[in-house]
């Protein structure tokens, strides 16, 4: 994504927030104030939009990116493979926490992430599973037992 395209997206976001800032409730007791709850974000959005326009004019790269070739896509996929797998895995970890509880969720996440990240022939599954379970147990025990912080329990069962 080029700088100019980012600037254009940000200008659009600024426009949306500016419009939304007028939808902020104005309570009657604050009517005497010239400065309502939407004034500050509006001022920031205006200044932000100005700098985005500067970036749009001075920034590098084309507004419409060229069509990527098969080779470009292959290189891109190879470079971003691990972040692209890790992000949805983390989202799934966060989403499942309420349903299956912190302990099971964390152990499953640790096993899955290690299997994704380790190089081919990197280690035995049994070691990965044992290590993940031990780490989860120790961490959970530390927080619940020592710091008295209750971690999410399974909500499904």
């Amino acid at each position, binding site marked *: *994504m080029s*700088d100019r395209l*980012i600037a254009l997206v*940000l200008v659009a976001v600024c426009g949306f*927030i500016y419009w*939304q*800032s007028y939808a*902020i*409730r104005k*309570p009657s007791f*604050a009517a005497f*104030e*010239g*400065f309502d*709850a939407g004034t*500050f*974000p509006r001022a*920031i*959005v205006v*200044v*932000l939009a100005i*700098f*985005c326009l*500067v*970036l749009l004019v*001075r920034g590098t790269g084309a507004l419409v990116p060229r069509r990527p070739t098969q080779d470009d896509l292959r290189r891109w996929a190879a*470079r*971003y493979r*691990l*972040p692209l797998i*890790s*992000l949805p895995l*983390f*989202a799934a*970890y*966060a989403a499942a*926490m*309420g349903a299956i509880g*912190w302990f099971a969720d*964390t152990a499953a*996440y*640790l096993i899955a*992430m*290690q299997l994704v*990240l*380790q*190089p081919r022939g*990197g280690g035995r599954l049994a070691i990965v599973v044992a*290590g*993940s379970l031990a*780490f*989860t147990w120790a*961490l959970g025990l530390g*927080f619940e037992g020592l*710091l*008295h*912080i*209750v*971690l*999410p329990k399974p909500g499904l069962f």
Partner: protein
Amino acid sequence: MEPLLAGLGAFLQPPVLISTLIGVVAGIIVGLIPGFTITMGVILVLPFTFGMTPLQGIATMMGVAVGGASGGLISACLIGIPGTPSAVATTFDGFPMARNGEPGRALGLGTWASLFGGIIGWVVLAAATPPLAEFGLKFGPWELFSLVAFSITMIASLAGESLTKGLIAGLLGILLATIGSDPVLNISRFSFGNEDVESGFDFLPVLIGLFAFSQLMTDLERREGEAPRVAIRLADIRIPHLQVLRDIWNSKVVLLWSSIVGAWIGVVPAAGGSIANVLAYDQAKKVSRHRSKFGTGHYEGIIASEAGNNSVSAGDLVPMLALGIPGDAVTAVMLGALLIHGVQPGPQLMSDPRTSQLAWGVIAGYLVATILTLVIQFWGMRLFARLVFVPYHVLVPGILVLSALGALVLNNRVFDVFVLLGFGVLGYLMVKHQFPLASFVLGFLLGPLAEINLRRALQTDPSVLEFVLRPISGVLLLLAALSVAYYFWVGYRRVRAPRVEPAVG
């Protein structure tokens, strides 16, 4: 002297001392693992401090910061990869010296220089903070608003390559901080009816996402899936303390000058250890009589870099304690931690009898943490050195789980883990497109302060001219404008400079 001794007394309480010790060990470990930053370490220990007293919590995080600043030298010397950005210049001479068969001397020089740099930085911290805080007491809402404006322009011009991007990042941080409740009238803004969003984004998940999560994604992308190859035999590590101390005595000018440069950079908001160590190295080269030896495994190079990056962490604490403005990302986290613990940072921190012991405890504790770092680093050097080689596929999932846990336990709601993810993705995209994260964080942290003070000022006197006419506020705004003007002037000169055509043939 009396408040300093009282602060030292508070810091030397066993629970505080033990917390600092744990923090220092954690800091050294985080510092020595390439790809992990001190900021990440401080963020990760933050949830563990929730059950502690404010001083104990800050002591733990300060331990991480001080230990991390020194720990980076281990990987810099042993494998030629700096453990943290603040140890980049240490690799220039540390790695060649270690490869030349003197790994112990390189590590010893770095550790001792860290101690002396830290002590010189501490002198600056103890001497500069009280008068600056006293000066800060004169600040009204006009001055506080202008101070935020000045800090954001400073960080924008220093933290990244493009001032425009720095300012956009800072403003974006302020804007996202407005989501939730309005700080004056408590009216919901941009929450779209979502109850979780109505309370706003907490500082901690935002920070974890921006710094820890995005950093891990960047590391994964670089395919650092495997542990670095061993360049030095760990059994060869023997530290010749006498020779090292003699080297340091012979380079006292370099040590002093590098430490002063580091501390000064720390005092300037935004400029952190990554700038300090390179600048201190460069300055040392200028004052040294052995200029040509730099980069070949010369002891003065290691001393300059390590003294510079340790004194900077003391300097960073000056604006935080005196004015409530963070010197860098690490102190931004500490500032957030103080807020979580119910302590309002600012000029009153040192004068208010309820909090002055905490402020002086932090100042005294910095010295204690510096000394502890030396002791622990020498004691566990070989053990720490082994940790450099722990594979990433084991570390990264563990750190991600700790990050999620940190966000989760703040309010015990899964929503904060999603906030972490959202800001993690945002941070990752910002890093990819060279938008400085430090500007964003400063904007996010100081945005509410700017809004509250702007509204207070305008309620007191509706004239906007007051911001310019009041002397301190006017000077701060002038400095902010000058830093922007200077940036554009340098850019203009660069464009106008005649190009040197390469010789043909």
